[in-house]
């Protein structure tokens, strides 16, 4: 991976823009098409907000976000690491998108949108950390 950028922020929704600014700068530097940029921003928001809401039961903790590019084919990579409770978001069943409005639970759509908008998403728990990696072909 090259052009690597890394930030550490509080796992808090107030920091969403900090993470988004990093992602935007990186994508703009790669002349990313608008559609791929929107899809990537969406996935990043959903993952970051999930971590902010659920990773730390004590209420506060850190998230490390690392971004960079792989070549052949050009791929944008985003890695989220937190020290919160072990949680694999990919293990949840996808929501039933055929349910009527009344039957629909409020929620469960975030990770589904991540899977749908990214080319590759994988989770590992290593050295006491949740590590979620997203890849988007540009």
């Amino acid at each position, binding site marked *: 991976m090259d052009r690597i950028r890394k930030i550490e922020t509080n796992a808090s*929704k107030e920091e*969403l*823009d900090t993470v988004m600014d990093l992602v935007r700068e990186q994508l703009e530097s790669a002349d990313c098409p*608008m*559609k791929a940029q*929107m899809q990537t*921003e*969406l996935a990043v*928001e*959903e993952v970051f*907000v999930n971590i902010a809401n659920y990773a730390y039961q004590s209420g506060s903790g850190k998230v490390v976000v690392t971004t960079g590019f792989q070549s052949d084919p050009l791929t944008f990579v985003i890695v989220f690491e937190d020290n919160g409770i072990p949680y694999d978001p990919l293990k949840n069943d996808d*929501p039933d*998108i*055929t*349910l*009527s*409005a*009344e039957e*629909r639970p*409020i*929620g469960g*759509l*975030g990770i*589904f*949108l991540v899977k*749908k908008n990214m080319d590759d998403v994988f989770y590992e728990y290593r050295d006491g950390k949740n590590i979620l990696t997203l890849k988007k072909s540009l």
Partner: protein
Amino acid sequence: MTINKTKKEDQLTVAVEGRIDTVTSPELEGALKDSMGDAEKLVIDLKDVDYISSAGLRVLLGAHKTMSRKGGLKIINAADSIMEIFEVTGFSDILDIG
């Protein structure tokens, strides 16, 4: 985010401008709650919205549920990028999109 409300007889039109994300969606939710009470029909105009995340979808679903007991909610002017999100999540089958 900018929210403009127009009331014409019993129909309320809420035009949204900007991004509907985790940070801004509570503002939209609040604006809708404040005004859904005295509207029979609700129209949400997404002409100037180029981004919506699951937080925004939740607000639209909530508004749809509230208005289904009355004259309904209609979404208008959704851009292609927003329509794709509606389609992938099945919202295009739930919401009245025109």
